[in-house]
């Protein structure tokens, strides 16, 4: 069994409530931080831990905190990004539903480190029942002296508020989230200035993901050095993976970042393999925006090494043969799935979610959806495949925020690895309406290059 730092107590009856959480070691890290550490010491521990932001970009959290501007007399804000919307990702929801006090304790320690006296949890609007759970836990924390004025005699004040969004993927992007929190449309801001200098209400702001902030608790409990020992190299610590698609046991798993992709999919400790004895065709391991890879490139890298569940190993080979850890939204496609249809579904998603601010994304996502729809419904031309490639190239890197890249990558990767499946759709339009291309050669061993 891998070590668990976030979900180790998730099975305890009543852990949602303060008394049970406290009895099981809850708020010990907050006590330690407030009573025996300075804010800078907390930041130092987080830096030492090597933890990378768990929202998707994987930027080191301690480093992000150290960029926060601290001008005199200007309030600073911590905003918890709970706008979990990346298709395939549902891990933050699990933490908030079952371990609300873990998040609140993480927010308390982090706010203390950053010197923020007001913290907002921005949660996606569709998670409509979760604010009640969080607000109940916040009220309990107030009652027991962990929020409010002069917390535990430390002189530190903190209030936490929950803010619901209203259905917009783009608000997971930190500057769009800030705009939304200010009561506006969720259109990303041009950076710089970065939120660390001018964020919420033009004040210095740190925006961190739910899992990142929850992980601050074990980092303070066991120490940054100890945390850094878990996992492999720069993939320090444990990561929540939300597994879905064609799996026997979809769900949220906490893994030490030292297991192989194969073990994660097939072992009974994790996903338990693919239902009905079907074979693995492809996988998107880090949420819908990261490149899809066929089975043969998922389980081993192009160099023939075992692919591991780490940031580096998943990225091995770059976009040519690798993919990304992303948010940990692990989507598995079995041999019966159609890559064209699946790509169309994702293209429709990004078209729907584009905020419309930058024309390459606003127009490009719409065209990608239209062209893919034609191919999927037997009206495609061979030149459409090149057209798709051309459109995605013109979106990538040409937009204010990364949604453009996120929309381009799934289409690019699908064509890169499954081009023959797209061609088959064009060449056999009627047959493609009746059956799927199937597993084809996507699980075969990779050809060995004759000459190097």
């Amino acid at each position, binding site marked *: 069994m891998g070590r668990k730092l976030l979900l180790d107590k998730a099975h305890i009856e009543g852990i949602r409530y303060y008394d049970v959480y406290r009895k099981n070691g809850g708020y010990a890290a907050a006590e330690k931080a407030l009573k025996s550490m300075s804010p800078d010491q907390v930041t130092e521990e987080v830096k030492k831990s090597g933890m990378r932001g768990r929202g998707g970009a994987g930027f080191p959290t301690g480093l992000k905190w150290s960029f926060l501007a601290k001008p005199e007399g200007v309030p600073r804000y911590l905003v918890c990004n709970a706008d979990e919307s990346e298709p395939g990702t549902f891990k933050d929801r699990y933490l908030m539903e079952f371990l609300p006090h873990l998040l609140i304790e993480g927010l308390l320690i982090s706010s203390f480190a950053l010197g923020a006296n007001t913290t907002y949890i921005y949660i996606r609007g569709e998670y409509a029942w979760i604010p009640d759970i969080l607000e109940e836990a916040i009220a309990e924390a107030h009652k027991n002296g962990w929020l409010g004025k002069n917390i535990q005699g430390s002189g530190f004040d903190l209030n936490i508020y929950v803010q619901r969004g209203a259905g917009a993927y783009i608000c997971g992007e930190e500057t769009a989230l800030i705009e939304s929190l200010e009561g506006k449309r969720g259109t990303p801001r041009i950076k710089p200035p970065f939120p660390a200098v001018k964020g919420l209400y033009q004040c210095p702001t740190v925006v961190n993901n739910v899992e990142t902030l929850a992980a601050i608790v074990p980092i303070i409990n066991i120490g940054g050095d100890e945390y850094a020992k878990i996992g492999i190299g720069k993939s320090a610590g444990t990561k929540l993976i939300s597994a*879905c698609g064609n799996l026997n046991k979809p769900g949220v798993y906490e893994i030490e970042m030292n297991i192989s992709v194969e073990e994660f999919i097939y072992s009974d400790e994790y996903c338990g393999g693919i239902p009905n004895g079907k074979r693995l065709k492809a996988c*998107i391991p880090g949420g819908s925006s990261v490149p899809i890879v066929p089975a043969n490139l998922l389980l081993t890298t192009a160099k023939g090494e075992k692919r591991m569940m780490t940031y580096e190993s998943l990225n091995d080979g770059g976009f040519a043969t690798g993919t990304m850890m992303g948010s940990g939204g692990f989507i598995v496609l079995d041999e019966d799935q159609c890559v064209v249809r699946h790509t169309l579904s994702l293209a429709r998603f990004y078209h729907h979610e584009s905020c419309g601010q930058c024309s390459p994304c606003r127009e490009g996502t719409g065209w990608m959806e239209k062209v893919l729809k034609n191919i999927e419904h037997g009206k495609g031309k061979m030149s459409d495949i090149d057209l798709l490639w051309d459109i995605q190239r013109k979106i990538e890197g040409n937009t204010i925020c990364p949604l453009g890249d996120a929309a381009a990558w799934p289409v690019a990767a699908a064509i890169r690895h499954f081009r023959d499946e797209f061609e088959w759709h064009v060449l056999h339009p009627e047959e493609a309406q009746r059956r799927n291309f199937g597993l084809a050669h996507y699980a075969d061993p990779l050809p060995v290059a004759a000459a190097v």
Partner: protein
Amino acid sequence: MAVQFSEEKLNKVKEIIARYPDGKQKSALIPVLHLAQESFGGWLSADTMDYVAGLLSIEPIEVYEVATFYSMFNLQPVGKYLFEVCQTGPCMLRGSDDIIHYIKEKLGIKIGETTPDGLFTLKTVECLGACGYAPMMQLGKFYKEHLTKEKVDQIIAECRAQANN
């Protein structure tokens, strides 16, 4: 009838505004629009939006901008029970297309339509963060997950029974 929150809801609005620094009451817009949608028939009419603008001392256009941007705000009346079925990749892999087709047949409506009795509206939505429990839909405040045709039948029957009470 003029749009007007109850005393209790007005207190809730005050409580929401107090979460933000002085002069930043516009931050309360999305939470207050949620409250308005719940209170005034499940959708936001122009009158409702104007009322919210007045409460927050902002221009009506600032409210329209926001209400038209976010997919959870309904700008047209919807049925008493709004079925929002997820159709994005992970749900599609688990058969959401079949579920959507089944609901269409069962209720005799197309996507975006409301049944003549005003009870049900069917909407397709993009990823709701329940990918591991697919296929799924949102019904009011909660999620209905692991949908099957039988489960859809049951949900529809429950809604009808509740509406008749």
